């Protein structure tokens, strides 16, 4: 299993903890990650303003990977979705394919079909497999009540993700987290969006959506929230305190990446997993496991 690691924009800037923990887990489980230096933004942020630009940027990244005979593995759900949607669109729309290739020739590339595009969590679930993952566990996370947040672009739109997990009744993340011995907490509104994309437009409305889930997590008794997308983390982790302030309430729910959770079970220490970089403090909750 060899993949070009697609980091996207948010992770190198604001979610190094995700990158750190993901690399660790990948190494342990035999997923080789290569780092092409010249990936650019996946195009997701420009989609709302300029779909054609978004398509072009995604095509650039895919053509680049294809040229180097590499498949693409992304850590961010939005990146995965943007790249996959572009691949899907270009396979069906000849006109847009021609336009894209015309623009790509300016940089010496051509899009001739997409490499395999995978979210890292999907690679773990489908290709590494639960048995292999469990082999590397050194710790048991018994006693930790974790709720999972699938987010929107990890599984939707369903036609571009090959139906590997059902967006209406998903279980891939819970299956992986449950392997560590942690208890999975189910809660109402599990499938609701984090509200992230609306943040630059209407912060208040976006936070209201985020708050909804935090309230449910609190009521359900979750100790921590598990994510697979850095943008969701911006909302739940980065903005948790301001929501607490705005609405005069308290959550203190640490937000952990899937790879941090798996990494913990694999025996990595706090530094290796970047746990100190999580905004909502994780020290107290995770003390018994280190």
């Amino acid at each position, binding site marked *: 299993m060899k993949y070009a690691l697609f980091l996207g924009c948010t992770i190198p800037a604001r979610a190094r903890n995700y990158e750190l923990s993901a690399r660790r887990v990948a190494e342990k489980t035999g997923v080789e990650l290569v780092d092409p230096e*010249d990936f650019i933004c996946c195009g997701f942020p420009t989609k709302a303003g300029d779909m054609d630009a978004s398509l072009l940027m995604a095509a650039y990244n895919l053509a680049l990977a294809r040229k180097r005979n590499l498949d693409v593995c992304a850590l961010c759900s939005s990146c995965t979705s943007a790249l996959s949607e572009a691949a899907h669109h270009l396979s069906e729309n000849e006109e847009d394919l021609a336009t894209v290739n015309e623009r790509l020739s300016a940089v010496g590339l051509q899009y001739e079909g997409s490499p395999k595009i995978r979210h890292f969590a999907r690679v773990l679930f489908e290709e590494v497999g639960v048995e292999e993952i469990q082999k590397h566990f050194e710790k048991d996370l018994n006693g930790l009540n974790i709720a999972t947040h699938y987010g929107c672009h990890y599984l939707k739109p369903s036609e571009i993700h090959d139906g590997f997990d059902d967006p209406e009744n998903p279980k891939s993340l819970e299956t992986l987290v449950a392997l560590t011995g942690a208890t999975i907490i189910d809660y109402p509104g599990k499938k609701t969006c984090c509200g992230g994309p*609306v943040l630059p437009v209407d912060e208040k409305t976006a936070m*209201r959506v985020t708050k909804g889930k935090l309230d449910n997590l609190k009521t359900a008794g979750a100790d921590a929230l598990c994510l697979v997308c850095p943008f969701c983390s911006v909302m739940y982790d980065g903005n948790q305190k301001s929501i607490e302030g705005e609405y005069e309430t308290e959550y203190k729910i640490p937000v952990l990446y899937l790879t941090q959770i798996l990494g913990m079970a694999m025996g990595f220490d706090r530094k290796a997993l970047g746990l100190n970089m999580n905004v909502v403090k994780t020290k107290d909750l995770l003390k018994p496991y280190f």
Partner: protein
Amino acid sequence: MGAVDLDQCDSDFAKELAQQPEAEKISACFGCRTCIAGCPMSAVNDTFNPARIIRMALYGMKEEILESPFIWLCTSCYTCQERCPQGVRITDFMTLLKNMAVKEGHEPSGIKAQMSLTKGQGRIYPLDDFDNKKRKKAGLPPLPTTCDVIRDLFPDQI
């Protein structure tokens, strides 16, 4: 609010939309409200209502839609598109509306900023040497702080 006079609306708008693959099925909408029920935005902000937006489009209320602040509230979570019983690609339609609004010169400042960063710098969060220092400390490989390719991809972006 006053009555919507269909005679004054842009009757070509619906046709214009029907040409785009994202919007070619919006006429199939029969107002079942499935999209509204699942929409996380409609639940917290009553100015956003996907079925209402589709209806406005079908009526031809072009200006009202493209100038509105509410089309920007769609988070593209795809819940509506997954569930629509008539297969209307609602999320893609919202994205199309946003694009059209930008072409007409209506876009929120936040989106404008995102666009200029991405199309101008190749990243929405440009990196500098300080970032690379932090990366090195953490044992991570460095990343480019500039992006030349982006100028060739978007020559008209200033």
